[in-house]
């Protein structure tokens, strides 16, 4: 191999909405971790591509790993776009020569091919094609990266064209297929196929199937447990506490050689267990645009969703309430509503204000003057304290902060 010179060239841009890059004045570390996953996914897929092309080889060629390194070039404030460059060899106008190929054929760059392959994986999954090729580790990392994206957020892969002089190929991908990719990744471990019913626990709960208890609360994970009498009863208990979002997933699954669940096969049916889904509802409301109320109605700001969700979950977890219903308000707020025991109605309306948020509370069982201003809070401890006292005492004199 000739001595290579290295240079940076555009590899991908990630465009994220919902203020995750800009509104908080930086990039959360959790986002960086997921961005880093794309490098690992491309690396593993590139090795897979290499071994597909060279079935006789047991090792990749020298310098293979050094060919690919991603660096963040820029975060454009306001655009919510993050540009990522590839640090890679300069091939020259004729492309890179493959010393092993006849007639000096141009060697394919496995990393560019790997990026395209990952895009095809996502597209195949999005189209519910179900055909996913690639090593399990790569797909799992890819799924982790995709979990960064939601709704209309996009990632563009900018891949060096194999045709000298041709424009780079740009392929776009969005988030909608992430879950299927994750499932497909789990399925790619050559599992045994057998009919099996299973339940999935998603959104806020990680379920420890060995110890049969909730291990950790987290958003966006899915853990499968078999449908046994024990797990059904346990899930029923979890659901009845009203604090967790559970989804029952029934379908035919595969198990791998170790007997662990490895993924679903064929059609799945989803049904929710217990109370409204807070996370799903917020995702639904994030699609609102200004003018949603027949031409009036301001859309809630992206940052409000995160803050309001934190407030709602804190109330749910600290006060032991069920998940609330959520509605938009015409002035760009989000209103959480609970139907409490004893025919009592509670509303917490959260609005974005300059330095944070403000929550107005309507507790309809309190004997208040109809003209009295609603108590308003800008600090979580004060809100929790007021709610605790209001819920515990039917008629109490409690004031806002």
């Amino acid at each position: 191999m000739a001595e290579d010179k290295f240079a940076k060239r555009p590899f991908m841009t990630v465009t994220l909405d919902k203020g995750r890059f800009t509104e908080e004045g930086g990039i959360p570390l959790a986002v960086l971790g997921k961005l880093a996953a794309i490098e690992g996914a491309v690396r593993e897929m590139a090795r897979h591509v290499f071994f597909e092309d060279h079935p006789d080889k047991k090792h990749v060629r020298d310098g293979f790993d050094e060919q690919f390194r991603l660096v963040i070039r820029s975060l454009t404030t306001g655009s919510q776009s993050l540009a990522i460059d590839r640090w890679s060899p300069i091939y020259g106008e004729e492309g890179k020569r493959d010393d092993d190929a006849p007639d000096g054929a141009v060697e394919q760059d496995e990393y560019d091919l790997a990026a395209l392959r990952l895009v095809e994986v996502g597209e195949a999954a999005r189209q519910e094609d179900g055909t996913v090729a690639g090593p399990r580790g790569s797909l799992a990392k890819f799924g982790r990266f995709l979990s960064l994206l939601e709704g209309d957020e996009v990632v563009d892969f900018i891949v060096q064209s194999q045709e000298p002089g041709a424009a780079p190929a740009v392929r776009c991908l969005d988030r909608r297929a992430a879950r299927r990719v994750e499932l497909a990744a789990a399925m790619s471990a050559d599992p045994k196929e057998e009919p099996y019913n299973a339940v999935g626990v998603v959104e806020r709960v990680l379920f420890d199937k060995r110890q049969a208890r909730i291990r950790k609360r987290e958003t966006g994970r899915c853990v499968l447990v078999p449908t046994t009498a024990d797990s059904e009863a346990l899930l029923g208990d979890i659901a009845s506490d009203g604090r967790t979002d559970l989804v029952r997933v029934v379908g035919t699954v595969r198990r791998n050689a170790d007997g662990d669940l490895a993924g679903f096969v064929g059609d799945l049916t989803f049904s929710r267990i217990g109370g409204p889904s807070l996370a799903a509802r917020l995702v639904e409301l994030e699609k609102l645009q200004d003018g949603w109320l027949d031409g009036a109605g301001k859309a809630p700001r992206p940052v409000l969703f995160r803050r309001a969700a934190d407030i709602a979950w804190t109330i749910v977890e600290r006060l032991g309430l069920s998940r609330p219903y959520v509605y938009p308000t015409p002035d760009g707020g989000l209103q959480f509503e609970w139907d409490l025991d004893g025919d009592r109605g509670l509303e917490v309306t959260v609005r974005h204000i300059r330095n944070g948020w403000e929550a107005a509370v309507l507790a309809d069982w309190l004997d208040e003057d109809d003209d009295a201003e609603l108590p308003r809070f800008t600090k979580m401890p004060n809100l929790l304290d007021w709610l605790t006292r209001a819920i515990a005492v039917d008629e109490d004199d409690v004031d806002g902060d």
Partner: protein
Amino acid sequence: MATEPRGPEIPATNGDHPVVVYRAVHPDFVQEGRVTSQAYRLSGADGGLLSVRDGRVVSAEEACHRHRAQGRRAAGVAALQVQDYHGHNVRVFEDPCTVAEDGFDDDSHALADLRALSPTAAGRLGKKLVRASTVRLFEDAA
């Protein structure tokens, strides 16, 4: 929107039957069949008069259909008896819309008069009204 109701007060009963009025409910105000109190909240443009439709003139489904026919979105209607409004010292008046004045005809249009209430009191009333309502949702064929 009218600043004064353009018709007589709607009575609580029609013969032996209680009179029902329907409030159109925007789809975003419905989650899993449950309607928010926002459905009964006034906007600044309402001038303290809450739009409803007279159940003596239209059925629940027709009330929803008319709302949609005016280019506005509705998942269904929330129904309350006029007597329920009276329980909160709110009177309901006929307010038929005409092409000349409103750009469309709607002889079922009516107004619940909340002008005597402060914004806070009107907000609290919305909570009470929605809890007393019967909600009917209708598929939107369009």
